[in-house]
């Protein structure tokens, strides 16, 4: 992943222990009663593109305090489900979060309802600085008068989010020259200041070093205590370390659901992941290859 790092960028400075989960409390502070104990409830979700059924009747319930991982082979419909929740892909069925029906709403209204997402390829605003990125993420509710003025100082929630994701020392750095992992962290920071209560993360640790994964996982666990978090991930090691529950998808349907151990013991999962010739079913060594 060194190729991702821009030569001469401050990425090299970044060592371990840069994330500061303690600052998280400040960002997540002021819990609003309407969001307490909210959960994501998906019923009979169907998405099809030109006749191809990408998601075929998925039911999914994720409660607050859960750190849910969505896994499955390529084409299982993981990202499509996230797209459907956030209004990017047209879908039928029902998606509710915090008592609000999300299906059919435009994306920006879904975001206003407390749903935030990241993308497989970190999509930050390359030409803007870390501070500007976070400030924009924090500002969807701003009025005209605030928008037309310059930013004076750093808003508290932005400062805390920057601290949480360990990018304070890079506040004035254009996001485009951040290392890959730092971009992912910036995206998580943007979700925090956006005040998302349902966080949908699409491969948040792709391209990260082992130490960075560890830190990110711990951060996600902390966030998951107070928010509803759904992670799409391929990395089995990461999943085993941090998932509190797992939903396995296959060809647009839910194949299995439960704790990591339960899912790993499920013969159908073993079948899908390892094919029929799986003598070592359930052993951690084999499922790592998934």
């Amino acid at each position, binding site marked *: 992943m060194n190729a991702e790092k821009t030569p001469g960028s401050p990425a090299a400075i970044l060592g371990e222990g840069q994330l500061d989960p303690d600052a998280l409390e400040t960002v997540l502070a002021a819990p609003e009663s309407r969001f307490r104990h909210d959960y994501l409830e998906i019923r009979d979700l169907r998405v099809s593109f030109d006749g191809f059924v990408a998601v075929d009747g998925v039911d999914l319930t994720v409660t607050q305090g859960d750190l849910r991982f969505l896994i499955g082979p390529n084409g299982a419909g993981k990202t499509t489900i996230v797209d459907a929740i*956030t209004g*990017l892909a047209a879908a039928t069925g029902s998606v509710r979060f915090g008592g609000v029906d999300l299906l059919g709403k*435009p*994306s*920006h209204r879904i*975001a*206003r309802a407390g749903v*935030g*997402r990241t*993308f497989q390829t970190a*999509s*930050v*605003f*390359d*030409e*803007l*600085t870390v*501070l*500007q*990125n976070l*400030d*924009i*993420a924090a*500002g*969807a*509710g*701003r009025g005209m008068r*605030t*928008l*037309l*003025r*310059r*930013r004076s100082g750093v808003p508290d929630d932005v400062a805390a989010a920057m601290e949480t994701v360990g990018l304070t020392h890079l*506040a*004035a750095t*254009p996001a485009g020259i951040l290392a890959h992992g730092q971009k992912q962290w910036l995206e998580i920071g*943007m979700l925090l200041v*956006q005040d998302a209560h349902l966080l949908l993360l699409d491969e948040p640790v792709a391209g990260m070093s082992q130490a960075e994964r560890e830190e990110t996982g711990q951060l996600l666990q902390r966030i998951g205590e107070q928010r509803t978090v759904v992670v799409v991930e391929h990395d089995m090691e990461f999943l085993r370390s941090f998932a509190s529950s797992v939903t396995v998808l296959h060809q647009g349907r839910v194949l299995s659901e439960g704790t990591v151990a339960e899912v790993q013991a499920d013969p159908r999962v073993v079948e899908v992941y390892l094919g029929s010739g799986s003598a070592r079913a359930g052993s951690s060594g084999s499922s790592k290859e998934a």
Partner: protein
Amino acid sequence: MSGLWRNPTARLWVGVAIAAVVLFVVAPGTLSVFRLNLLAKFLCLAMVAVGIGLAWGRGGMLTLGQGVFFGLGGYMMAMHLKLADAGPGGVPDFMSLYGDGTVPGWWEPFRSPVFTIVAIVVLPTLIAALLGLAVFTRRVRGAYFAILSQALAAAFAILLIGQQKVTGGTNGLNGFQGFFGFALSDPANKQMLYFIAAGTLLVMVLLVRLLYRSRYGELLVAVRDQENRVRFLGYNPALVKAAAFAVAACFASIGGALFVPIVGIISPADVGVVPSIVFLVGVAIGGRATLLGPVLGAIAVSWAESSLSESFPSFWTYFQGGLFIVVVAFLPGGLASLGQVWRKRRAVEAPPDDEADDPAAVVAEPEPSTSGRSA
């Protein structure tokens, strides 16, 4: 000196002072009445360029139809001048010539100077805002938006030509005697018009600078580069883009309105497809994402056009086309990015202390991606 150069506020006032001296002292003192009037015309075209810089450079909207808004402002001003020349209750000369000698109802309000000025500022802005909302909500962007805006310019010109009885047709509206009570034949009044144009342009540049440095300016760049990401943060990108498009339309309209008394004619040839593209050429050559690039580019290109076509009438078009190709191919950020490249090189030697405070430095990098996205 370098400390002064780094401080954005100091740099602003130094820049304003230099611009004011050049525009209000040097130019009137050294140029003949004819040349000064020519410069005033270029300043009007530069107003359109400032708007294009905002909409295209910062907002990523390739506006190939600014002639529409330039024309709206120009024709509204021309209508008022024709009515004022005809006197209270009078009929503009061309109407008795081509039509039945009556003033159509929708011309009548333009007898009022106040109505005309308000309409010049408000009407194109409103049209652009509504059009922008409709188009951007449907996620029409990139080349499709460019084609749409260009088609509008073509349609507008055709409409003007077809309605000769009320618009003067191909000839347009011309032969104005006065400007809000001042005789246009008087050189002193011509100089006054130049000063009005120079002052207006200066105010526009300062307004755009305020916008660029505001949170809105940052948001606009964000929308340009990652529209979907902005959407998932809870913003409606259509609103953000429509606002910039409306401001650009307003500037173009004011430019067109001032163009009319300065040049003495507005015709479909000033508002159609070709002039709409030419507006863009200056902006691209100057550097669309910078503050001054579009202004200086537009003035320089117009200046070169008039002086080169004086000596080589048939040569100019090739030169302009060639320059455009060279800039787009080798310097996507425009000539303004030459300075950026140089400053960036220097910045590597001495780490910048507050580059983030200077959106021009941050945003105006000659990223090939920017041209690919909007062109």
